[in-house]
């Protein structure tokens, strides 16, 4: 059926004076926007197919291309925005739920950007990270309430399993299937080189990546795809996925067309069958059920691996986290409403959940109020975009952060937000072999390593400025933060003072 | 320490020098050159006439080549090779002693005993630089040139002088041009291209008698000319070798290490018979690449190194007025032929026993070396889509693994 009423969103601007008709754009566009017209001897474009992924722009050797937002606009209406109207057209065309990818793009407040970081002046010296040791290593996991000594009075140093990270950042869950083999390879290799962890997501662990097990968090999600003994044993930690920030309260659906070959084998489901993750775990309808799964997984892994419980940041997250902290889980991962996704219903993604900054602040305080903060480590994700965001998250009370979108960007993602099409021109959110090969893990992993090393440098600089030389002295150190442009309520929830106070 | 002697100063001699020096930097090397020139690229003599090169650029190796390789160069013709005394005597009686010798005497033009040939004033062969220089002197804008022989030498000569003379007629007893390397169909394409550039052909007919400026053809036709070029054929220059007691057939007989049947006597290049791996026979492979390779192989072995050649094949890359022709290997009668044709191009693969025995490409010769390597290396083409391969040579015929080695390794 014709796509009624929908005018192309983007325009392909080709500078004819610069175009040398090398046809790189044509070869690189999986959406088949560009083509060479042999009769006219020029490149032409079908803009209706363009998703503005910028692949052609990036590879055009003469910079003859740019993609711009079409200025063809419906009559201005402050209530009915262009996008709202077009979504109506789309739904009238298709009769379906609108799908989107990546994180919530709506203009909700970004609290990170309303928080400022302290620095030392006079009374307390800043520390130069180039001269002095500056430590970013963290251990995630439950810490004992009391020490124990043996009969000789020596400390018994055995404690619950810990996840050791060289810096307080992990790559968060992205399943094999939602992203490509090469994207996984890049993440796994980078995590190993960096001494941090990446996360398999719910799609199982490809046999090639068992070797990266010590730097792998494996996920157990409601679909239980690819979960088996070796899978659990291979990992550094096991994560129970209860929810995802981009789509709290709903499950996942990887269409059968993507369940082919290795993906089918890795997920342990037949080729061509839809991979449906139910909204709830059907064996977890309440907190005590979660406790059972936590201990089932501990039993299965002989209490050698920390168990992470990942939840979406929703309204009563503090109470939920308190429950999880008492469930035996070692680490709680909270995913804010800006977290990314390979595909989610647009309405859910854009309207459900709460900002991670507020969720983190309230959870950390709640766990301290209850005296159980030591029971668990806190990992937060959902649009941690820079080293400054990391520092702010740690100072608000996180032990570490999860990043995914930033990692994808490092690998080449241009945030066109059409992962659901499976035609990712950057070789990330696709399973088409010709596209998958566009991401060379040598490059992908190196870029991830570069990004994290850059962040590590920046984190150290920021820490040094505050006079802090070890990341644990930053954790929960909210005095190092000040708010700007926040209401008293927001400041209260964040547990920080306003700038100038 | 040995004293090496090389008789001849062509491509094989250079190969021999470089072969020796790759193993032995100390011993003396003496080269006896019958031509009074620094080593030059013999096939370039036609390009010289055409103006595509000049005497300086024709040098096959730089001017300081002998000096750098510590080679003593003696101009003169070797007249006698005494293998017992290990000496060579030049025409001027100069004697040169040696421990090991390599004969690189090449070939010389074969001139049939035409009746009345001595009545022709301006008659030339086309083999050496001196031949070319002499011919050049005779050329005028209006010259009518008759070239006897439509082989490689005759036709390159024709191309070289085409713009400098009035007319050119090429005759040959064979019914087609380049009969030694092309069949009639391919030859026709080349011929027609040459004709477009003003060369006239009289094929299946040849001069039998000359009377000053007239040639009388076998058919009885008479052809007037001002300049006569005889390019009937060449013969391996084997006399010295025979004198030294080496076995000689059409060329000097050598083994895969370029050793003649007499100890310490080696031979290489056009004067010798190499092993044609495409046919499995000993024959003279009078082409420059083989001359160099044989020379080098001989040099290495003379100097105590170890080298052998078992993959020589006949091959030719020849072009006239922009139309290129690349051939290699053999065209066995029982071969399966894969052909791709258009008006001005022919591509033909000869496949026998799942191997590429030989090929002919006229027109676009790009990447023909891939075909050549299949012939040379006797690569099985059993799993190759030959209908694709005939259209375009490509490394796609190899497995990923093989390509990985070729493109991802040191080769």
């Amino acid at each position, binding site marked *: 059926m014709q796509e009624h009423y929908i005018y192309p969103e983007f325009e392909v601007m080709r500078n004819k004076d610069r175009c040398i008709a090398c046809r790189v754009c044509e070869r690189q566009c999986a959406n088949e926007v560009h083509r060479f017209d042999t009769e006219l001897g020029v490149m032409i474009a079908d803009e209706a197919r363009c998703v503005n992924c910028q692949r052609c722009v990036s590879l055009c050797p003469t910079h003859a291309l740019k993609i711009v937002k079409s200025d063809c606009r419906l009559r201005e209406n402050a209530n009915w925005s262009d996008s709202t109207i077009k979504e109506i057209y789309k739904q009238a065309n298709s009769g379906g739920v609108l799908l989107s990818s990546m994180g919530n793009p709506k203009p909700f407040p970004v609290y990170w950007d309303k928080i400022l970081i302290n620095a030392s002046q006079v009374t307390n010296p800043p520390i130069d990270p180039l001269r002095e040791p500056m430590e970013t290593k963290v251990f995630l996991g439950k810490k004992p309430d009391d020490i124990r000594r043996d009969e000789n009075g020596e400390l018994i140093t055995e404690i619950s399993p810990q996840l050791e990270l060289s810096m307080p950042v992990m790559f968060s869950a992205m399943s094999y299937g939602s992203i490509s083999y090469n994207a996984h390879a890049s993440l796994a290799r980078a995590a190993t080189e960096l001494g941090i962890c990446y996360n398999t997501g719910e799609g199982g662990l490809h046999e090639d990546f068992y070797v990266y097990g010590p730097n792998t968090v494996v996920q157990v999600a409601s679909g239980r795809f690819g979960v088996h003994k070796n899978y659990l044993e291979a990992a550094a930690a096991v994560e129970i996925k209860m929810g995802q920030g981009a789509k709290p309260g709903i499950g996942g659906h990887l269409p059968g067309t993507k369940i082919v070959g290795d993906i089918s084998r890795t997920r342990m489901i037949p080729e061509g069958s839809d991979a449906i993750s139910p909204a709830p775990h059907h064996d977890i309808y309440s907190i005590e059920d979660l406790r059972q799964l936590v201990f089932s997984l501990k039993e299965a892994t002989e209490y050698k691996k920390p168990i992470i419980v990942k939840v979406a940041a929703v309204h009563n997250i503090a109470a939920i986290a308190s429950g999880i902290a008492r469930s035996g889980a070692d680490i709680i991962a909270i995913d804010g409403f800006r977290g990314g996704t390979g595909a989610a219903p647009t309405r859910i993604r854009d309207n459900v959940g709460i900002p991670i900054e507020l969720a983190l602040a309230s959870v950390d305080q709640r766990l301290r109020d209850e005296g159980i903060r030591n029971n668990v480590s806190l990992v937060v994700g959902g649009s941690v975009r820079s080293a400054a965001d990391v520092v702010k998250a740690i100072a608000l009370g996180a032990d570490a952060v999860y990043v995914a979108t930033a990692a994808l960007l490092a690998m080449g993602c241009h945030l066109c937000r059409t992962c659901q099409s499976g035609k990712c021109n950057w070789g990330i959110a696709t399973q088409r072999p010709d596209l998958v090969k566009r991401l060379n893990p040598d490059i992908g992993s190196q870029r991830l390593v570069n990004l994290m090393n850059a962040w590590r440098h920046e984190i150290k600089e920021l820490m040094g400025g505050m006079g802090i030389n070890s990341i*644990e002295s930053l954790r929960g150190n909210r005095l190092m933060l000040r708010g700007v442009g926040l209401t008293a309520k927001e400041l209260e929830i964040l547990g920080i003072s306003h700038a100038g106070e | 320490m040995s004293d090496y002697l090389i008789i001849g100063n062509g491509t094989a001699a250079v190969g021999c020098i470089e072969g020796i020096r790759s193993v032995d930097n100390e011993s003396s090397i003496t080269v006896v050159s019958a031509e009074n020139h620094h080593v030059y690229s013999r096939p370039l003599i036609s390009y010289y006439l055409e103006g595509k090169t000049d005497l300086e650029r024709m040098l096959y190796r730089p001017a300081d080549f002998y000096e750098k390789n510590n080679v003593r160069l003696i101009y003169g013709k070797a007249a006698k090779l005494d293998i017992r005394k290990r000496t060579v005597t030049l025409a001027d009686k100069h004697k040169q002693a040696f421990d090991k010798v390599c004969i690189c005497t090449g070939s010389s033009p074969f001139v049939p005993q035409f009746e009345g040939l001595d009545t022709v004033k301006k008659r030339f062969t086309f083999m050496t630089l001196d031949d070319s220089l002499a011919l050049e002197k005779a050329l005028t804008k209006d010259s009518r040139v008759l070239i006897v022989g439509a082989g490689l030498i005759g036709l390159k000569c024709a191309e070289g002088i085409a713009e400098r003379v009035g007319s050119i007629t090429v005759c040959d007893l064979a019914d087609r041009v380049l009969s030694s390397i092309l069949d009639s169909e391919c030859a026709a394409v080349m011929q027609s291209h040459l004709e477009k550039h003003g060369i006239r052909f009289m094929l299946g007919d040849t001069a039998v008698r000359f009377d000053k400026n007239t040639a009388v053809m076998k058919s009885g036709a008479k052809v007037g000319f001002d300049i006569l070029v005889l390019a009937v054929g060449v013969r391996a220059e084997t006399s010295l070798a025979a004198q030294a007691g080496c076995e000689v057939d059409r060329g000097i007989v050598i083994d895969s290490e370029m050793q003649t049947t007499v100890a310490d006597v080696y031979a290489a290049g056009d004067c010798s018979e190499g092993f044609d791996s495409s046919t499995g026979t000993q024959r003279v492979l009078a082409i420059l690449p083989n001359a160099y390779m044989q020379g080098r192989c001989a040099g290495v072995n003379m100097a105590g190194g170890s080298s052998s050649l078992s993959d020589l094949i006949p091959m030719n890359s020849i072009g006239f007025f922009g139309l290129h022709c690349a051939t290699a290997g053999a065209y066995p009668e029982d071969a399966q032929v894969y052909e791709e044709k258009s008006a001005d191009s022919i591509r033909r693969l000869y496949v026998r026993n799942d191997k590429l025995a030989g090929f002919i490409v006229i027109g676009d010769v790009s990447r023909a070396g891939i075909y050549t390597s299949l012939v040379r290396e006797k690569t099985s083409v059993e799993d190759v889509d030959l209908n694709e391969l005939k259209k375009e040579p490509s490394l796609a015929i190899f497995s990923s693994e093989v390509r990985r080695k070729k493109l991802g390794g040191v080769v």
Partner: protein
Amino acid sequence: MKLEGEVRIPSGCAIAAVISKDGKGITGDLIYNAMKPMHDRSNGLGGGFAAYGIYPEYKELFAFHIFFDHRSTRKECEAFLKERFEIVKGELIPTRKLPQITDEPIIWRYFVRPLSSLLISEQVDENEFVARSVMKINTSMKGAYVFSSGKNMGCFKAVGYPEDVGVFYKLEEYEGYSWTAHGRYPTNTPGWWGGAHPFSLLDSSVVHNGEISSYDANRRFIEMFGYKCTLQTDTEVITYILDHLIRRQGLTLEEAASVIAAPFWSTINGKPEKEKEKLTYLRTVFSSLLITGPFSIVYGWNGGLMALNDRLKLRSMITAEKDDRVFIASEEAAVRVMEPDAENIYAPAGGEPVIVRVKEGNY
């Protein structure tokens, strides 16, 4: 301006301490005179001392030193104390009027014994009982502030220069085997008597020079264990941390030192396996109690002193000896006042605890 407790107040400072390893008596003038050459390290907004072994006659009783802002507050507080303790003695702490020391609150001391019936009903030991009671008064009884609560020891502090504070409290009349002293240079307080240092809880006292950058991380963690950082000062949080680690968790002083001034991971990884395991354990388990930023502290308790610098040694501090005495000070000048012939002047490395214990039985 806001007072301590209403806002976090960092400050620069001078510290000094002296101890007799033989437990011999030292009068307070020795230490308050030692503060004179470090006058410029204070700004008159706080000075104080902790003295050990000064109440031998009440050795078994907890000595509470309390500031009251009003007579009525004292009555209210005494009522509270009586509910929980047997008050063996209550009196004004003797002071002398000095022009340099003004606006003094009502300063009392009580020698008390916890009611054993309450210890049983609350299922805690007497130390915990006292700590909770002190916390209760200091957090919920406005106008009353317990600034000393140990046995056979006492803190004396005021707004003013330390050498004047010593005279004010007539410290030359007290004899103790161990003294610590503090001169304060706070940067954003008008100065409040309770905010002066040392800070103490039970017999633990801390004098501290520095401004720690890990403050809020430490505070928010330690507050999970029932402590309430009412003053928002470094000294307070350090005292609570040491109390938690040493009294409650039962760590040795050395272990506690390697928590709050933990060696760098690179150092830990270079240690022998057993040591490495232990240090890794301590750093992992008590990671939130690592103190970063500059500090030099003298931690006092019944029977000893521990001097400790932050791991980068961002504040000056030296130790010295003479005969049975050990001296600690921000500057050598202070030691020379106490003992011109002091020997073995030593600047401890960052994170290296210097622990001095009085011979068992001599205190």
